[in-house]
């Protein structure tokens, strides 16, 4: 078996992982990144929209500042974020964008002169200043007071990831791709690396590191319908949770997007509705005005997703081999509009559905989109519970998103957090040394070897890995989806506990040799069910509605009892996570108040006189 030793081990080579890696490599440390796929295939590459940073270069961004960005971010989080972290993020975002420009990102730039734009289907005019020509420009995004989202056409994630990986290649950062981390190596106090399975050969390897970083992105794939890449199965969160020491934060905060296409759950942009698209049911009846007479399809993402789900529960969804869905109608916008303003949607419909949105309805349903929860860290990115373990990006609960993430803040978080946390990792590496006990490494590896042997031999049981995974999907979608209530969540938790027991009794039907995909899923699935239980149990306990977490039986945001972050740990052998709570923020630059959208009653933290 191969053993590798390095100063920093980044589990995950997307934007957050590579940004931290670059900081450590620049300071002269050895860095190895592990990745399920070649680094440039990471899900970071799929982000199209852009990155928020208060540069204030474009006309509609005039007067913007980190203060305004901070206010948007805190409101967006529904006061669930750590305000010290949100402040760090907003202050550093402009530096990070400029640095990316220096490294080679072809950001779109300010073009001086008059131009037009649409808002709420109406045409407006703006004029860009001559003195700003050639500086990084920005576009509008939901929930922001200014145009602040820096972009490169509709390929922001792609260009930033390629630039980042170029920088990593330049600095000699080692990337081992097609590998999967199965377990952290730790002595109960220090994290010392990971046991890893090679997805080319099936062999196990050990990586010993003074610092380990988890940057594996979101865990959307515990849901059946997700806009996430198929690799977003929460691998990094699972190995952190399995230590029994490291808590995951706010796992119940899961964001759903209203318009994932059926069957493959690729996202079509909110711009469809922004430009006048409507949602229809199986009778081709436009139903949103029935529920939201005022805003209709333009209510906030979570509100629209909730009503869509409600409507399908009334039996008004369209049946398909892939489950129920609704229709998105943009036919009336016309070919010209679709080919220019919604070019990407036009292409998605033609490439992936084989339909023409100018004449056909688009099958859509609300789809899991973003995980606000993750490995809980302090503001330096250091995970709770183990020394030498850091986390960054969507895999982390750093926590600037609280209970709802603003568009354009997630992609920006990867590089801004990477920059800040990378500097902290460097300081840590300069001051901390560890020794690697060989017995511990051997035992950790042997435990994983044993799991693999048992799965291949069928000694653990004969459960079918796909049947167990489907049972997890069903339980989560029903109980911990867009709408939540005590009764369904209780049933969900109970079912997931049964599914968890079944997931420990999987037997392979194939031979498990080499890069066998059935074995890979079988190794991962029990951990995925544990993540699902963290989501469901957290959602059951949290008897309020905040951000994307919507309880039908507790529709109010309850600052009196729930201005807290959920921390979930998993004791070895347990069938449920242990939950504790900590204050949502240590500082309150902006005291809890109205978000200005979404409505809903608020129970204040302190009774008003």
């Amino acid at each position: 078996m191969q053993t590798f030793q390095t100063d920093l081990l980044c589990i995950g080579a997307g934007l957050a992982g590579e940004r931290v890696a670059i900081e450590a490599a620049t300071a002269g440390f050895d860095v190895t990144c592990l990745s399920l796929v070649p680094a440039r295939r990471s899900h970071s590459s799929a982000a199209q929209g852009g990155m928020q940073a208060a540069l204030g270069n474009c006309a509609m961004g005039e007067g913007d500042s980190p203060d305004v960005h901070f206010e948007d971010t805190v409101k967006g989080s529904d006061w669930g974020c750590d305000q010290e972290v949100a402040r760090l993020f907003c202050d550093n975002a402009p530096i990070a964008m400029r640095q990316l420009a220096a490294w080679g990102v072809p950001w779109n730039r300010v073009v001086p002169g008059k131009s037009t734009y649409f808002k709420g289907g109406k045409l407006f005019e703006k004029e860009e200043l001559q003195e700003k020509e050639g500086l990084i420009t920005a576009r509008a995004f939901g929930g922001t007071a200014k145009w602040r989202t820096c972009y490169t056409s509709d390929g922001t994630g792609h260009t930033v990831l390629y630039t980042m990986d170029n920088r990593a290649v330049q600095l000699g950062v080692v990337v081992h791709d097609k590998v999967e981390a199965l377990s952290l190596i730790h002595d109960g106090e220090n994290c010392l690396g990971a046991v890893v399975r090679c997805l080319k050969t099936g062999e196990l390897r050990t990586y010993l590191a003074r610092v380990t970083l988890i940057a594996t992105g979101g865990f959307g794939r515990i849901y059946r319908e997700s806009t996430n890449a198929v690799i977003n199965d929460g691998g990094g969160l699972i190995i952190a949770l399995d230590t029994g020491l490291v808590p995951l934060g706010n796992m119940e905060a899961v964001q759903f997007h209203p318009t994932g296409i059926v069957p493959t759950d690729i996202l079509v942009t909110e711009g469809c509705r922004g430009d006048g698209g409507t949602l229809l049911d199986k009778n081709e009846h436009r139903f949103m005005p029935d529920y939201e007479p005022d805003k209709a399809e333009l209510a906030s993402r979570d509100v629209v997703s909730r009503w869509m789900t409600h409507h399908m529960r009334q039996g008004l969804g369209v049946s398909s081999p892939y489950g129920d869905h609704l229709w998105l109608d943009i036919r009336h916008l016309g070919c010209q509009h679709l080919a220019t303003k919604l070019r990407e949607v036009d292409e998605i419909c033609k490439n992936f559905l084989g339909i023409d949105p100018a004449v056909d309805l688009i099958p859509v349903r609300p789809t899991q989109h973003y995980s606000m929860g993750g490995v809980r860290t302090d503001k330096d990115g250091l995970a709770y519970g183990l020394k030498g373990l850091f986390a960054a990006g969507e895999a982390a609960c750093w926590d600037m998103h609280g209970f709802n993430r603003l568009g354009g803040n997630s992609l920006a978080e990867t590089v801004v957090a990477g920059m800040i946390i990378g500097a902290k990792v460097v300081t840590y590496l300069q001051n901390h040394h560890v020794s690697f006990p060989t017995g511990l490494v051997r035992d950790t590896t042997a435990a994983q070897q044993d799991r693999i042997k048992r799965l291949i031999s069928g000694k653990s049981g004969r459960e079918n890995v796909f049947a167990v995974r489907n049972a997890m999907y069903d339980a989560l979608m029903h109980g911990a989806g867009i709408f939540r209530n005590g009764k369904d969540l209780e049933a969900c938790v109970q079912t997931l506990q049964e599914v968890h027991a079944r997931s420990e009794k999987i037997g392979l039907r194939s031979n498990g040799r080499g890069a066998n995909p059935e074995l890979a899923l079988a190794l991962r699935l029990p951990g995925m069910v544990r993540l699902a239980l963290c989501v469901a149990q957290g959602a059951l306990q949290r008897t309020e509605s905040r951000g994307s977490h919507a309880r039908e039986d507790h529709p109010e945001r309850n600052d009196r009892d729930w201005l807290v972050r959920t921390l979930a740990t998993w004791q070895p052998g347990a069938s449920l996570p242990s939950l504790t709570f900590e204050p949502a923020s240590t500082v309150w630059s902006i005291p809890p108040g109205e978000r200005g959208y979404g409505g809903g009653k608020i129970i204040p933290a302190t009774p008003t006189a």
Partner: protein
Amino acid sequence: MARNLTFSIFRYNPQDPTSTPHTDTFVLDETNHMTLFIALNRIREEQDPGLQFDFCCRAGICGACAMVVNGRPGLACHTKTKDLPDNITLMPLPFFTLVGDLSVDTGTWFRNMAQRVRSWVHTDKEFDPRALEERMDNALAEEIYELERCIECGCCVAACGTAIMRPDFLGAAGLNRLARFVLDPRDKRTEQDYFEIVGNDQGIFGCMGLLACEDVCPKHLPLQDQLGMLRWKMGWAGIMNLLPWKRT
């Protein structure tokens, strides 16, 4: 109306001493909007859980799922079964090292390519966090983005006649990458510097001009234009190299 589709899929697991290269046949009922992503996942879940293939974003953005579909390299995620006949033959991309069945190792080759073309902005400038960003014309930024849209799926090299005969050929993907930096004013490399990298048969002079790279590129990148532009520039740089008084 609903068809039964017959999939003939290449099978071989190099890690399994009992495995030999062969073709397996699977039959599936076609459903609305079916893509090869859906079909292959169904085959794996319902018929053969050991079947190896790669998907990642499944939205045509990451390039993971390139394979040879009825003889033509392309992305499986946006290949719709309704555009294919009843019999569908799936083979792994040639040129790259086979991992198993339809899965190949593109990562090693592309990272090596990035090192060979020294795929980063070469500059002496230190980044100053207090300074404004350097200005750039928006039209130029968009031009750079057009070339940066490559998703490293490997279709172009898999379809390339030169690459089949010459494994060290940089391929259209590598030459396109270099062209992206030639275009970028932030990169201070000279034409002589670029000539050192691609002014040979492994680079710009290896291309036989068969145009397959551009034909199969799922992002419709203007690969041949880049190749032509580089060959012209490098040819000129090559001539300059021969003139003793121009060599410094």
